[in-house]
């Protein structure tokens, strides 16, 4: 690689953010539809603008990196990958727009989203839930249920989950994952868990 290390690190960082954000947006957009939630749809719209900026920065950075003519094909591949993530973000925004324009999601959509391999679900954290008071890292929701926390709703606020985000009783957690994990998550959130989750993953193995 002939390009400066600093630029290559930035390119990787931006590409990671582009990919992760575009996929998050898609999940959020489906959640927005499922819940007919304007707030969630607005979140998608805001992320779309963010992705647009990020994508432009990424492309400028790639073009400015000073690659050699020999590397031009590789760089074209890199730029095209950015275009793919941007297209996914656009598609997510298009889905969110349905909600923002006040088109009531057709009942079929609810069935599709809930029936597809990956599902979106919302659960409220009960007072006595083992999750209440834990950070997301401590809660190990993906390990225990196979579900990913997409966004947390606290009062009127949407919180984007970080490992050190603390879960509070009353929070509404919106999560996606395989349909099998949905029941486990509901059990955990409503404090009916007694340690007998069907899919408790091992933390270590020998």
């Amino acid at each position, binding site marked *: 690689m002939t390009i400066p290390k600093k630029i290559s690190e930035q390119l990787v960082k931006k590409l990671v953010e582009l990919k*992760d954000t575009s996929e998050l947006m898609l999940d959020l957009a489906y959640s927005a539809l499922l819940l007919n939630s304007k707030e969630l749809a607005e979140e998608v719209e805001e992320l779309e603008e963010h992705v647009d900026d990020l994508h432009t920065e990424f492309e400028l950075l790639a073009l400015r990196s000073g690659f050699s003519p020999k590397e031009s094909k590789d760089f074209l*591949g890199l730029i095209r*990958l950015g275009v793919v993530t941007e297209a996914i973000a656009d598609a997510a925004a298009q889905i969110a727009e349905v909600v923002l324009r006040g088109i009531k999601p057709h009942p079929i959509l609810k069935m*599709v989203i809930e029936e597809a391999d990956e599902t979106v679900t919302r659960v409220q954290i009960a007072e006595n839930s083992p999750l209440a008071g834990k950070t997301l890292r401590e809660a190990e929701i993906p390990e225990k249920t196979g579900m990913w926390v997409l966004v947390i709703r606290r009062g009127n606020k949407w919180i984007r989950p970080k490992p050190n985000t603390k879960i509070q009783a009353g929070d509404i957690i919106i999560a996606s994952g395989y349909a099998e994990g949905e029941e486990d998550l509901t059990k955990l959130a409503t404090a009916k868990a007694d340690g007998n989750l069907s899919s408790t*993953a091992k933390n270590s193995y020998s």
Partner: protein
Amino acid sequence: MGGRLALKLGASKSMTEFEKVEYKPVPIRELLTEMKDISELMIDLAYSAALFHSKELAEEVLELESYIDNLVYLLNMNAMLAARDAEDAEALLSVTAVASAADKISDAAADMAAIVLKDIGVHPLIRQAFQKVEEHLTRVKVEPNSFFVDKTVGELKLAPTIGVDIIAIRRGRKWIIDPEDEEIIREGDVLIARGAGAGIEEFEEAAEGKIEKLEEE
């Protein structure tokens, strides 16, 4: 894992010639579920094709893209016929908007696959980036001593236990895309899977015969 509608629809596998569009009555829900699943699968397959330098996988993505195109036509026709009045038309708008978004995603995946097929190149930085993203992709060969051997995909319960999903299997020269639960894993199969970091590591170790099971019961 979604049951493939392809057989039922008799979708064309040809990439070069267009299939005549013909109306078939198919429930909109089935069509849309299939479109959502396949378009998301295509993205990961296309990324995998780039990461693992597989032109064959890239070609599979292009075939799925033409399959999605057929589904879009069918969905639109079925939606048109389902609308009896203005109210229905408005309600169905949300369905066609989502279908068009899924189509857009499948087009993006096909563009990515085209990069691989045209030898445009996958920059080493892409590999670095893919080690840092939330959802990881892996390619692993099933070793003779792995407990995966002779089990069906469904039996392994990969999704509920470790959040991993096998998106394709290469068996010799044959590719099985989005394998059904009933598909039996054989020794020597190359599995392409997606999932979060820790789950993927466990999956790789299991396929390589380094661990005996996925979890404590």
